[in-house]
């Protein structure tokens, strides 16, 4: 496969035999996962199954102990040095990381900046956009997530759902190719979940993004995702189109998990 014609068929994200452990505890065990460009993958599973770790490794918030992660046809965790693959340097990590954005469970907005400034900070300092352009982009995105009235509000003046929508705008302002959503509705009061899910629906239709989301919203995963991966004990236990996985799970563990989750809701 050559560099030029390979890109089209290459997956946007590829985990190649990736292992992550903390001491004796193996969190992810030889994970292989490919996500195509534009694909929307929901990751579900019980807590401790390693599902959040998948996103955190891809965002380079966690190092990996084995294997290689590829993004957009290039290795993220490694780089080529002659014929060999060596661990990525800081500058290589920064370059590849620029293709990835992430929204967190607890928003992690910058509390000392207004909503607008939160969305302008990285485009100005990282992408070196002129201030006016960064501001225009931030205004557009905040309007897109329905916060046109809240430009100058600080995070503490916004509801949880509004804060999370700012976090979406902030991540989108960097124009990532891949978006990682880590339980983005888990910290929200139930009545605020809908407004955030609506933003995700918009992302799916209006932006050509590859989405990986860890979620407990089974209904939403079923409706929105192209594929669902069920994690158990650091491995993908079962995966498939949501209709198949939710209505006719093949694996006993998947069945147990789904029935437990459905009972709870």
């Amino acid at each position, binding site marked *: 496969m050559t560099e030029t014609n390979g890109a089209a068929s290459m997956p946007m994200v590829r985990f190649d035999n990736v292992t992550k452990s903390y001491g004796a505890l193996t969190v992810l065990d030889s994970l292989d996962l490919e996500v195509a460009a534009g694909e929307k993958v929901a990751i579900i599973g019980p807590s401790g199954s390693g599902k959040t770790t998948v996103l955190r490794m891809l965002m380079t*918030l966690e190092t990996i102990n084995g294997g290689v992660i590829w993004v957009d046809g290039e290795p993220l965790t490694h780089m080529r040095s002659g014929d060999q693959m060596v661990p990525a340097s800081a500058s290589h990590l920064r370059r590849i990381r*620029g293709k990835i954005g992430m929204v*967190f469970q607890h928003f*992690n907005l910058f509390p*000392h900046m207004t909503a607008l400034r939160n969305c302008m900070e*990285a485009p100005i300092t*990282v992408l070196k956009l002129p201030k006016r352009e960064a501001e225009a982009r931030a205004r557009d995105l905040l309007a897109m997530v329905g916060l046109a009235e809240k430009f100058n509000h600080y995070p*503490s003046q916004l509801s949880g759902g509004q804060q999370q929508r700012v976090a979406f705008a902030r991540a989108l302002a960097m124009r990532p190719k891949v978006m990682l959503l880590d339980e983005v509705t888990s910290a929200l009061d139930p009545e605020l979940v809908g407004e955030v899910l609506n933003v995700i629906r918009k992302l799916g239709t209006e932006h050509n993004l590859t989405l990986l989301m860890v979620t407990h919203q089974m209904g939403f995963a079923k409706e929105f995702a192209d594929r669902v991966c069920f994690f158990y004990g650091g491995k993908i236990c079962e995966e498939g189109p949501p209709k198949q996985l939710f209505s006719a799970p093949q694996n006993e563990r998947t069945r147990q998990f789904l029935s437990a989750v459905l009972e709870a809701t």
Partner: protein
Amino acid sequence: MEIWDWGYAFEILPILARASIITVEATILGFALAATLGLLFAILRMSRSPWISVPTAGFVEFIRSTPLLIQIFFIFFVFPEFGVNLGAMTAGVLALGLHYGTYCSECYRAGLANIPRGQWEASTALNLSGFHTFRDVIIPQAIPPVIPALGNYFVALFKETPLLSAIAVLELMQTAKILGSENFRYTEPITLVGLFFLVFSLVSAAGIRRLEYYLSLRGGNA
């Protein structure tokens, strides 16, 4: 001879007032240096590279565990042996800044440690450089909570400036000593110097409380 001579007190007051300018100068310059160095020490100590963090920690502990007076003497009398000749005021300000810089670094360290991990992670996710993460995200959140503690060191540093009289900086204490020995009367100059320190300390403490209050108001919005 009476215990307090008002005439003498008023006679020396203008001289002491002039010397107090040197004291205030040494305080402000020394503290500006301490606040800057302290932040630098705190950040270097957080470095992931042990080649940076360990020597910094060692240096900070060393400075903190040796007396300021010895450091003042060392900079003023021993540095020239190595070809570094500093004026008394410069040497004094440098020693004060270095010594209190190590104390300030502990304040900053506490402030930096209190920043939630999510702030660092969001900065990484947005691909901010280390410099911009510190400058725009971490430091603006870490400093306001530690300003009261830094303010205490400002007052403490101020109260240690009389040590500069040991290398003949013409600050308040040195001036008072000279006046005392010239006139064989120490009561008035030393008392007046003590009073000046008292007033300045109280005013500074009030200023710090105001600043604290102002920051707590802003903190509500941010």
